[in-house]
């Protein structure tokens, strides 16, 4: 092996060097320390049922309950797709009538929009009069905005809709 990289002799020589023993006073210090009882760890959590620290869980539960109650009281929380008021949507202009009441607040519709998400051609069908037509399925989202008659409260209801229409095919 290359003399520069063969260190076996030197390593053997190093291993013959024996680290000096620690001073006697260090062993005495260790004896004094190890003779003492092991200190108990300082627990940060409750370890007995009578500990006041369990009260933290009660406080947390009360806070969660309070937040749930507030969210239930908020009018927006009452509105879901199932409970959404039925608005009368008519024609391209989507005229909306009626009013509704939620939590003692009367809302009136102020705008309605229809967004066409897409269309799909189901296929060609023959109508009752014998003419051929394409059956087209349209997918919409109707958005109705309600505003409180008093105050600044506002609700928005999105209703997915699907419509089928027939498009006559030009006769040959």
């Amino acid at each position, binding site marked *: 092996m290359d003399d520069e990289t063969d260190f076996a002799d030197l*390593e053997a020589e190093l291993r013959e060097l024996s680290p000096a023993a620690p001073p006697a006073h*260090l062993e005495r210090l260790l004896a004094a*320390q190890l003779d003492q009882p092991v200190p108990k760890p300082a627990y940060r959590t409750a370890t007995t049922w009578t500990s006041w620290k369990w009260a933290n869980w009660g406080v947390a539960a009360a806070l969660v309950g309070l937040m749930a109650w507030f969210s239930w009281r908020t009018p927006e929380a009452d509105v879901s797709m199932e409970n959404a008021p039925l608005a009368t949507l008519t024609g391209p202009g989507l005229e909306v009538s009626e009013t509704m009441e939620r939590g003692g607040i009367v809302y009136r519709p102020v705008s309605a929009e229809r967004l066409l998400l897409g269309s799909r051609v189901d296929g060609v069908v023959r109508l009752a009069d014998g003419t051929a037509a394409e059956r087209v399925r349209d997918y919409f989202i109707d958005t109705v905005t309600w505003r409180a008659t008093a105050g600044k409260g506002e609700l928005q209801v999105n209703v997915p809709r699907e419509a089928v229409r027939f498009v006559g095919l030009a006769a040959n």
Partner: protein
Amino acid sequence: MDDAPDDSQWRHWFRTYGGRLLLAARQWSRSEADAEDIVQDAFVRYWRHQRHLPGDPLPLMLVSVRRAALDRIRGDDRRGQRETAHAADQSVDWFDPGVGSDDERRRRLESAVVELPAEQREVLVLKVWGELTFAEIADQLALSPNTVASRYRYALTGLRRSLAVVDCHG
């Protein structure tokens, strides 16, 4: 090494490993007093909490020494750098005095080890007297095994060069 040692055996353990632990602690401390404190902390921590762990105890104790040293360094940094006469502490003999005809060469080798760059010396100490593998040293020092092996090789090259220079002029 004994299995399941009881508390009365700590002296035997300390006399077996204490010198190596202190030698390792010196690599990461600013003074001899610091090194002794580190060994004390590390040994107590090991003996109370880790001595029942399986495997060779020396690597575990060396890890404990390293952690105690890092804790102390962080504590010193928080309190402000403490300038300590480290050079004076190097006058402490790191190795047992040799007996025999080759005492002069042994003394020169000891001096050469002490005078190595710190990053090479810590690897040398952990490898030769800590009996750790390159992978274990790399793990402990958060270095790559290749870096550790290179530092070890540089250390040996440096030692050989130091001894050769003395031989030429001596």
